[in-house]
């Protein structure tokens, strides 16, 4: 596309052409600006209402008076534990599935097509349905009770489609030449996979993981019936623990006068997301992998 011929419009079509170009450029910039404005509005609104409440003791203290005073220490801890369970189950599972879909199965085979179809349907299932499933299966049938483990496992079911789809694309976007070169050197398929393909796909894999962390952190409906509502510091993964999003929901909807604290907690949640985003980018940079996923290369 780099060698586009530039045809200079010199005749009567010039003015209409320029107007069209200008309109197109304007609408594109408007759309982009609007997206940024929405994000900026949300961030500014949350920070104005919430930042003044945040200090160190808010971040580490126990919840008191139903959240209207005290801090959110136990809630941050529960959130991190839920996220930890979610990722430690879903990341290996989804990368393994993505490898199976790209390396083992013919991408047009019946099984691969069924797996993809299932994932697409799973991606469209509303989170409250995952919550009800998690409550029925993990909480009651498996007897895990309201616990961080139930919540984390429910969330990992929920993020699987995103993770697998992004991991699949990441692996597929590794240029075919890499594989050819590895094959020419006589590397076995598994060595090629672990030494060549996965490292090359790492930035895109990380992007998928960050995306699913975002979805998991934002989740309320799937957690209220699985990881539960208890705002005490969890002692093990079998304890119930309230996540930040559930806490925000409870403060905003259930607790009279909880609004201001809900904004403060929302600030913390957004900050956590930004920190995770930035850390991932930094880690990848230090690992020498760059932060832009491979462009093109897709079939």
């Amino acid at each position: 596309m780099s060698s586009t011929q530039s045809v200079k419009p010199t005749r009567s079509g010039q003015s209409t052409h320029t107007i069209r170009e200008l309109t197109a450029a304007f609408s594109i910039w408007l759309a982009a600006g609007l997206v940024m404005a929405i994000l900026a509005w949300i961030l500014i609104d949350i920070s104005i209402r919430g930042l003044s409440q945040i200090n160190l003791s808010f971040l580490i203290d126990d919840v008191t008076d139903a959240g209207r005073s005290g801090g959110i220490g136990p809630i941050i801890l529960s959130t991190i534990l839920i996220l930890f369970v979610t990722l430690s189950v879903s990341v290996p599972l989804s990368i393994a599935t993505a490898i199976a879909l790209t390396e083992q199965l013919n991408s047009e085979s019946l099984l691969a097509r069924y797996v993809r179809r299932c994932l697409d349907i799973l991606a469209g299932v509303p989170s409250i349905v995952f919550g009800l499933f998690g409550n029925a299966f993990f909480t009651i049938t498996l007897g895990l009770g309201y616990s961080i483990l139930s919540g984390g496992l429910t969330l990992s079911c929920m993020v699987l489609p995103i993770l697998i789809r992004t991991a699949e694309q990441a692996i597929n976007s590794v240029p075919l030449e890499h594989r050819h070169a590895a094959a020419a050197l006589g590397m076995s398929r598994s060595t090629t996979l672990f030494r060549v393909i996965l490292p090359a796909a790492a930035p895109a894999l990380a992007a998928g993981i960050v995306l699913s962390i975002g979805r998991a952190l934002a989740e309320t409906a799937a957690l209220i019936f699985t990881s539960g509502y208890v705002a005490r510091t969890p002692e093990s993964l079998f304890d119930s623990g309230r996540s930040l999003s559930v806490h925000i929901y409870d403060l905003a909807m259930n607790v009279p006068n909880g609004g201001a604290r809900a904004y403060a907690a929302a600030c913390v949640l957004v900050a956590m997301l930004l920190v995770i985003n930035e850390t991932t980018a930094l880690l990848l940079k230090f690992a020498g992998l760059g932060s832009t996923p491979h462009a093109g290369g897709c079939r």
Partner: protein
Amino acid sequence: MNADRKTMKLFPHPFLAFILSLLLTGCFRNPSNEVSGNVDGKLSGKITLTGSSTIAPLITEISRRFEEQHPAVRIDVQTGGSGKGIADTRMGIAEIGMASRSLKADEADLITHQIAADGVGLIVHSSNPIKDLTAEQVISIYTNQIQNWKEVGGKEGDITIVHKAEGRATLEVFLNHFEIDNTTVKPDVIVGENEHAIKTVAGTENAIGYVSIGTAEADIAAGVPIRLLPLGGVEASTATVSSGAFPMSRPLNLITTDSPSSLASEFIRYCQSPEVHDLIRSQYFIPVSSEPNVAQ
């Protein structure tokens, strides 16, 4: 090439084993109902409560104080609505349920223990000049026979009816008091929690809704632009609910099966004791003395 294929097929197994082991450790553990009871005169064990989202913040505070007095006790409070509390208590998932209404005839297998009371009041936007509504007017508004504030002595404007979702305790208290059949109600907005209803009315000048009086009073004190309407000439306030003068109120109940564990009964006794009255008031509810003095 064939051998390579085999190694390839083997390697997801460690992942699977890891996940299976995670699941299996869960299977063999029975988290709720561990030891519960009296050991050496000291209470220990764990109980789980589920139910009404109105009561949950209050019980969370009470249980924190109870846990301070009995360090070996753990009380987990979950939410989901009065209906879930009753269902979970029946199924044994929770030792104690929370219900912000009286039990119905088909729920007579369970026992209620009232801990507090809450009044349900009608709210309008603070700019609404309406002073009072009769029961007939409220019924006509909610069944859509009156559609404009002008018809009940207010200013010109279509009435926005804010109604609660099925299963909400305030809904049942409201319907019972006015003897309205829920299928005849024609709401414009259906909401869940009290705070949600208050936010809706505060943002809609011509709206009418009904919420917990304690919550409404707290929000009015915080400057939310809503107003509580008197009912049958009685002012809607925590004081009139407490004295029993206000007609539309509901009990806040703990619910058990007929054989609660000793720890559960001890906790219920504590919830009903005067020691927690300050907590009940701080959550904008009204304490009841040991004999229930509030209309069902």
